[in-house]
């Protein structure tokens, strides 16, 4: 309930909720290969990365960012609004709980292969404490021109009227690039994560886009498995802004996990056909091929 409340509240404070030029970001697992690389990338994009945490490696600097042993230590020295987690899967739960228990209000978890029960633990604690979790197994979030907390190749984005919510990373990059090349920038691009249990849901993100004055159309990038899209459809049917949807996995066989832990058609549920059907009848425009999306957006915005 606290979770729902938070998201509702976020609607009224859209930019602060996602990321803006003043958002202070911490990187957990900053000394690892991915942590280092993407810290540099985020800094390059203008994101204010103020601190990093790697237990046992405090005292160093990574790309000029000071590294601490604990989140508490980092918080003694910096105001921190959000954290991005790169630590290996077995340590993700601990890192996320550390950040949340010490009062960091937005947690973006990049790591994939996080155990399902750890995800349950992370999200239960986030709900209890009213904290937003994005991911695990997400590419993060970017508000073009403002900043990014994530691993997306930021050169493909530009500011504009299209909000993108996606379960998968690279596919959403593809789609964002197509949109940018067609002249449609993005108000924000948010990765939910490809796992069975993730923090933000499509409906949470759609409700933000629906209220955000800068967003004029929404692109939903879904895939087979689970019922995140079915859940989204309920919200879409009540939306005023146009929604374009694309679902990956049309040709996927049943009962096989297609890369993402969440992408599996089980007992006939979560299939491509059912998702397309429910999204269409909720009023979303479902694209058959990724490159049809810019044209659909153009039609809907005119």
């Amino acid at each position, binding site marked *: 309930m606290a979770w729902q409340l938070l998201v509702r509240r976020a609607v009224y404070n859209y930019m602060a909720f996602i990321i803006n030029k003043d958002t202070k970001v911490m990187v957990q697992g900053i000394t690892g290969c991915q942590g280092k690389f993407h810290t540099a990338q985020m800094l390059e994009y203008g994101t204010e990365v103020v601190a990093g945490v790697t237990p046992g490696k405090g005292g160093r600097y990574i790309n000029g960012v000071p590294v601490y042993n604990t989140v508490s230590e980092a918080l003694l020295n910096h105001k921190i609004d959000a954290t991005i987690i790169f630590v290996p899967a077995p340590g993700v739960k601990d890192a996320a709980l550390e950040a949340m228990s010490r009062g960091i209000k937005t947690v973006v978890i990049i790591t994939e*292969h996080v155990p399902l029960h750890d*995800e349950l633990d992370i999200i239960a604690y986030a709900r209890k404490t009213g904290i937003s979790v994005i991911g695990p197994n997400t590419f993060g979030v970017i508000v073009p021109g403002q900043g990014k907390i994530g691993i997306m190749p930021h050169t493909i984005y530009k500011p504009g009227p299209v909000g993108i919510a996606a379960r998968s*990373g*690279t596919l959403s*990059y593809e789609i964002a690039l197509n949109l940018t090349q067609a002249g449609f920038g993005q108000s924000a691009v948010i990765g939910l994560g490809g796992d069975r*249990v993730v923090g933000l849901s499509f409906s949470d993100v759609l409700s933000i886009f629906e209220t955000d004055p800068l967003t004029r159309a929404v692109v939903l990038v879904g895939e087979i498995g689970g019922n995140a899209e079915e*859940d989204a459809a309920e919200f879409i049917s009540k939306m005023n802004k146009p929604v374009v949807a694309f679902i990956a996995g049309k*040709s996927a066989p049943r009962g096989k996990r297609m*890369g993402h*832990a969440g992408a599996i058609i089980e007992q006939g549920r979560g299939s491509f056909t059912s998702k397309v059907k429910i999204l269409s009848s909720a009023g979303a425009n479902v694209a058959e091929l990724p490159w049809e999306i810019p044209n659909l957006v153009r039609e809907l915005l005119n």
Partner: protein
Amino acid sequence: MKLYEYMGKELFKKCGIPVPVGKVYFSSDDIEELAARLENVVIKAQVLSGKRGKAGGIKFACTPKEAQKTAEKLLKVKINNNSVSAVLVEERLSIEKEYYAAITVDGTKKCPLLIVSASGGVDIEDVAEERVIKLPLDIHIGMQPYIAREAAWRIGMEKALIPQFTGMIIKMYQLFRNYDCELVEINPLAVCDGRLIAVDAKINVDDEARFRCPADLPVTEEITERERKARDLGISYVELDGDIAVIANGAGITMSTLDLISHYGGKPRNFMDVGGGATTGTMFNAIKILLSTGPKVILANFFGGITRCNEVAGAFAQVKDKIGFSMPVIVRLSGTNDEEGMRILERHNIKYYRSIDKAVIKAVGMAAAGEEGSI
């Protein structure tokens, strides 16, 4: 990872959940001995697919001789296309009533879910919704007696059975948590002579928690040798039956690549998602797996984010230098370090595209024509 019924029942026994008297056999030897002790027995083929009963995987026997023969037969047949490597021989219970009980994860509510029904013994998907009770669980307090008790009252369970039922559900939840389960299912949960007994056991364990699985957790493999190799590399691989090998980064883009191949009339040989941040070394080995499937074409689709396109290109260059390609290779690169990647491919004379539609159309065309590619 799914566990065989007999493995699930072993875990049940360890946790104190009652199961029928029985034993697993990997050959039909010695079955007579057990059957003689139990009189009437049921012989259950150990396969991981559902609907085993309908497929003839569950048989009964009244004499030791019959039991031995039935088991022998079962061990030779295929059930739903799965070979039977073991049979579970158990006492045949006289069942008064069958319930259904399961604990699983609700991805929408993001919490564990207790599912019970008075309609046991059939697939829960086939039970009318109003006869299925679903109670979401708060992981911070776990399974408490009142939750099981409420479930029991709601399915109209006889009062005398409720304390047993409550104890059993609490143990199921402990198993669910301690073994990182995706699903713990008892169907049917039978009433026999006033006792609740787990007549079947279905347990799915989260593969991602393998690194911490308790020492007593058995391991089952439903995957091919190539799938195992891919898993050891930390990448996702699913074998399909086409002729265009696919390698890409990210589940969505890989699925989408397969969809596009189908859309243009081609047939993918596999799904291969190297995930985020794969190194040249990993990719080198991943491409070797693709080569071993003997495809007509290899199609790579990389959009660099956490994965860097120069490393992808480097891996293809290395494979070409060290092993060589006997089929056309088509690489699509875009994103992080793509320019550098394309320079590497250029140097090694590997065909590349910036846009995926052209790459797919080319791959499908080449597979159809069997023509020589960039090599």
